[in-house]
């Protein structure tokens, strides 16, 4: 088959051929074909390097729209790295390079033509440690809107209120929106950070151990929150807490040493995992 035909994917081809052709197409910013429509994220043979050290050894997985995917695995296996590779946040402070692709709605996020700021707006992130800005609660939420620009004060007010309500923290802060966000408790700060991520209506929300610094009640609130967000958002959550993964997620990915060992429905992973390593891990035999 001549090369120029290869680079012109045709709608009549099967999904399988379609994808293999897309892998070879360097720049492609069109809309995803119908077969992939509900796959909002597709990770294709992703290798990730910190300097010369390889942290991810070729990961392939996909995330469907309005799905909650949990990522579990022993410390250092690359969960955070995988998460950060999706919105390309690691590269602001570290020397990294990647091979492979991550498609967000069909667009390769590692395409040189990709607008990274645009990408990061489409993918919200909640970090392991709450990291509010040393600004007022209101300004924290409004910051993302300020970055987009062009909102009237009234619209901003509405979005701030809506986001704080979505993140189940409105009642606790509505009387002190002008107070410094650092005065909130850790659990409140984390919900504020979730609200901050929700304000700009991202398509996907990445959460890196969002509850690891929180008490059980705050954790409970955030888990409930994830359930409530599910109809509108797609969520990928890294957690060390098996119960949490089992409670909140539809599918669970188990990683080890930079590889994806098993990725399947959460109920299946936690009841009859296909891989011996997964079984050993979830039953606490190592990790």
């Amino acid at each position, binding site marked *: 088959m001549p090369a120029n035909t290869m680079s012109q994917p045709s709608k009549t081809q099967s999904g399988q051929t379609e994808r293999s052709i897309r892998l070879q197409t360097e720049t492609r910013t069109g809309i995803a074909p119908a077969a992939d429509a509900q796959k909002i994220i597709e990770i294709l043979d992703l290798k990730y390097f910190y300097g010369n050290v390889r942290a991810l050894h070729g990961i392939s997985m996909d995330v469907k729209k309005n799905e909650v995917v949990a990522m579990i695995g022993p410390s250092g296996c690359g969960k955070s790295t995988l998460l950060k590779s999706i919105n390309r*946040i690691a590269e602001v*402070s570290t020397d990294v390079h990647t091979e492979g692709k991550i498609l967000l709605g069909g667009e390769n996020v590692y395409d040189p033509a990709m607008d990274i700021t645009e990408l*990061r*707006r489409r993918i919200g992130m909640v970090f392991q440690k709450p990291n509010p*800005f040393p600004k007022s609660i209101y300004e924290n939420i409004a*910051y993302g809107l300020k970055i987009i620009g062009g909102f009237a004060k009234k619209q901003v007010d509405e979005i701030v209120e809506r986001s704080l309500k979505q993140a189940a923290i409105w009642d606790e802060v509505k009387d002190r929106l002008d107070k410094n966000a650092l*005065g909130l408790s850790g659990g409140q700060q984390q919900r504020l950070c979730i609200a901050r991520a929700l304000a700009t209506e991202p398509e996907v929300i990445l959460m890196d151990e969002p509850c690891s610094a929180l008490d059980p009640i705050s954790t409970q609130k955030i888990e409930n929150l994830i359930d409530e967000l599910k109809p509108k958002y797609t969520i990928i959550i890294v957690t060390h807490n098996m119960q949490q993964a089992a409670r909140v997620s539809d599918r669970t990915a188990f990683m080890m040493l930079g590889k994806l060992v098993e990725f399947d429905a959460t109920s299946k992973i936690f009841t009859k995992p296909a891989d011996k390593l997964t079984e050993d891990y979830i039953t606490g035999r190592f990790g």
Partner: protein
Amino acid sequence: MAEAIIESMPLSRQVRTNPAAKNADAAARVAITAVAVFALAIIFLILIFIFKEAKDVFFDAKKRDQVLPTLFMMPANENQAVWTPISKNPKYSLMPMLLGTLKTTLVAMFIAIPISVLAAIYTACFAPRWVREIVKPAIELLAGFPSVVLGFFALIAIAGFMQRLTGADYRLNAIVGGIAVSLTAIPIIFTIAEDALSAVPKAMQEASYGLGATEWETAFYIVLPAAYPGIFAGILLGLGRAFGETLIVLLAAGNALIVSWDFLVPTKTLTATIGAEMGEVVYGDTHYNVLFLIGVFLFVFSVIINSIAEFYVKGRLMKKFSGAA
């Protein structure tokens, strides 16, 4: 037998066999306290000394009548000198040198603040790490330059350049002096501002990038406001350095006690006046006392600036990063 006992006890319960180590802690504490007290005592003694040498201006009736009426006197016309401490009819007006200090300091800060703050923002927020590793020590090295070298450089190089640029009648003036003085303030402001900017937690910057902000937006909306108290402190300390600078202005500002807002006429500052005249003054004379009075001014002013820098920054930074609502 002893060995058996030692073996039977956990290591944490065993008696130290090195009593010196036990006492070293206490000794170090005493030594450090002593040094701190000594340093404070010296500062306090200097303060007492300056005040003592200046006090006759207020407490000796004859000197008081001589000095106080002329202390803030303005010249009646362009040619009247208001600082004539060794004439028959002495005048002791500080106006020309206050104005001189004000002018050179203004020029110095006008140059130093934008340069050093922008350089700090660049190195802390935009420069690749290797650039930062070169630029920071290089600028800090400037702080160690002997001011006589900077003064000489200003006298020879900056003065000629500025005269060609401005067409001023006098080679040496407040602008030339101020430019040279800015070279002493820049490294101070830069270092402190850069530290303050670099101290802003990375996590906050990640949060900003994560929301789709650019490097510029992150630097100006997040990092700069968070570092503002530290930058302000750096500016205050730079200010203290600028107005306390003596040798450079002595060499490069022209040394004329003229009451004028013209920045292009020769200028003498408070510090330069002390520097130039202290060597030849008659010990215990009124002139001598007034020079020390100038010293008191300088001392008080620098204490005020430094305290504001210290307390303002401590207070604000604590609040910012520890989270008092």
